[in-house]
């Protein structure tokens, strides 16, 4: 029982890392980013590459890859996505364009990644057992969990307490209304998209310390992130975290108590049930 709680919590930390970035990108900047998983893989590749070629600790990689990803994602938004945002007359049109464009980007990033490393990003970092209230787990998962919590908490406090955070939330509620009260919507959107990309890349660095990834596996994380964001309700950080918690705990519980073969099926079933009873996700707002 304790095992389920501990493993489940740690797994939900992973999921939160995967989903928080996309939540900002979709919830605020309105970009359904299908290249989200590939950005995560870029972070993982950087971590693997620096660790295996020059023994740089992933924790150090984290420190400089996060701002680097912020800059790259800001540039992507500014130069590749802004034209689409400008020309889109409706949210639906933007959704269609961003699906097409980011799907293209995901291919480009896969191409770049496999030309650097076509095989598995296999390395081991902090692969040491550690006992938490009687349940054994690995240090690398624990470290990732702690950092995920820190990122989540910082994000939540910033969104709710700071001026700029409030602006971001205002944009996520309504771009028109936010524009009317004098918020620079394009700037806030670009910032949110870049921040989302930075968090995703940080997630990639951390996840690569305990999951063996390869250049083509990004789509798996994109799918998971989409599921979690939608389950939690678009644009709500709490929602994404609660959804990540539910999935982590359900998967671990099913794997331990019923059959590991059903873990992913159970996770998707949970997602489906949530949407059946709450069509706008756990914390979503009813569309007006």
């Amino acid at each position, binding site marked *: 029982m304790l095992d389920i709680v501990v493993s489940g919590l740690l797994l939900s930390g992973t999921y939160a890392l995967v989903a928080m970035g996309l939540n900002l990108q979709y919830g605020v900047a309105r970009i359904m980013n299908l290249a989200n998983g590939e950005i995560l893989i870029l972070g993982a590749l950087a971590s693997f590459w620096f660790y295996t070629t020059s023994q740089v600790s992933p924790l150090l990689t984290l420190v400089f890859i996060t701002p680097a990803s912020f800059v790259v994602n800001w540039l992507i938004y500014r130069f590749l996505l802004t034209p689409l945002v400008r020309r889109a007359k409706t949210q639906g049109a933007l959704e269609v364009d961003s699906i097409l464009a980011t799907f293209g980007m995901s291919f480009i990033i896969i191409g770049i990644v496999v030309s650097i490393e076509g095989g598995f990003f296999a390395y081991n970092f902090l692969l040491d*057992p550690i006992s938490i209230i009687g349940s054994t787990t690995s240090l690398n998962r624990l470290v990732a969990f702690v950092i995920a919590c820190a990122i989540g908490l910082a994000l939540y406090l910033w969104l709710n307490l700071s001026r700029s955070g409030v602006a971001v939330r205002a944009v996520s509620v309504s771009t028109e209304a936010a524009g009317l009260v004098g918020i620079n919507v394009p700037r806030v959107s670009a910032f949110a998209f870049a921040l989302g990309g930075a968090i995703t890349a940080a997630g990639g660095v951390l996840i690569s310390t305990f999951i063996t990834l390869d250049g083509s596996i990004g789509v798996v994380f994109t799918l998971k992130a989409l599921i979690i964001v939608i389950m939690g309700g678009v644009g709500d950080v709490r929602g994404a975290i609660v959804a990540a918690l539910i999935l982590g705990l359900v998967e671990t519980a099913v794997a331990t108590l019923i059959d*590991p073969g059903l873990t*992913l099926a159970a996770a998707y079933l949970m997602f489906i049930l949530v949407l059946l009873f709450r069509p706008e996700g756990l914390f979503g707002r009813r569309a007006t």
Partner: protein
Amino acid sequence: MIRRSLMKIAAAGLVASSALVASAAAAQDVIKVGAIAPKTGPLAGGAVVTQWPNVQLWVEQVNARGGLDVGGKKMTIELIEYDDKTNPGEHIKLAQRLAEQDQVDFIVAPYGTGFNIASAPIYGRYGYPMIAVSAITDKMEELTERYPNLFFTLGTTTAFVDGVKEILVEQREAGAIGNEIAMVNVADAFGIELADRARELFTEAGFELVYDKSYPLGTPDLSPVMKGAKDSGAKAFVAWSYPPDSFGLAEQAIIEDLDVSVYYSAVATSFPAFSGAYGGKINNVLGAGGTNVDDPKVAEYRAAHLEVTGKVPDYWASANTYAALQILEQAIEGAGTLDRDVVTQYIKDNSFDTVMGDLSFENNVSHKFWSVGQWQDGVFRGVKGSNVDGAVPVRLKEGWAE
């Protein structure tokens, strides 16, 4: 209108390619060899270790020698390669292209069981000898009957399970393990097939599967699986796993300090990256494959592989993949022609001197392969195999410390 423009493009393509053929025919001193395998997609991680470097190595070596001797004429190899993106539809289309558009003289068999079977009808129609390596199945008889130019070299599903069973039986007799086995498998084609066969063979041998669970491909956290296996108390652990989860299971076994005497995981255990990641911790881990590094031929091959491609070959199908190319090479030279029917017949009738030793085919199947290997002090050595020399005794797993 659209049809017409499509046909126009088709016609343009035909003209262009026939021009190419004409210019090639003028200077017919190259052999065109086509290779299709994933460079992206789920199987790419395996193909860039086992398949592509060997194709590169072989072509470079042959051309460095001045090419193949075909009936007294030296011909170099021109390689035409495509990325199938791990997509069967894409692979089939590209295989058609190799045959019809590029009109290659020979082909390198694809990577992966499904892709070999999917492309066999096409290559069969054009008479390409197809020496499959990364294709393991129990249906060899039916398949080779259907496609007489298809050859198998890496063994059957049953042989792989048998190798593991033999080790389990031996260790039970030696008293290292009891009757209980914990077995897990990835719920995908090859994993399901192996587990299904193992359930049968292990039970026949009197073993009891005290833990027998599958997990889905892409499971992010294998710790519940490993905890379950640990709680079962079995002293033998067998996982019919794929590349990403072979790594994940090893990681969890280290964390849980899984107390077993026999630990086996299937595909990718033989990859250099496996020991690269876990070093001495995975000493005495068993896995699918194996090789005999003490064989001078193998040692020479491994050194050349590293020198030419910059990569360490895996300790399993890499050598077989290279051996398959050597067979093709020797068959072309031996037959002294590019006529594919003659070359195919030559492969059936002769024995070949390869990195894997003397290889020959019996009803299109070679019965010389490694089935189980073991990481012993940084080298993955073959411990069980069929008609191979140099198997070393199995060691027991003793803890997961460095």
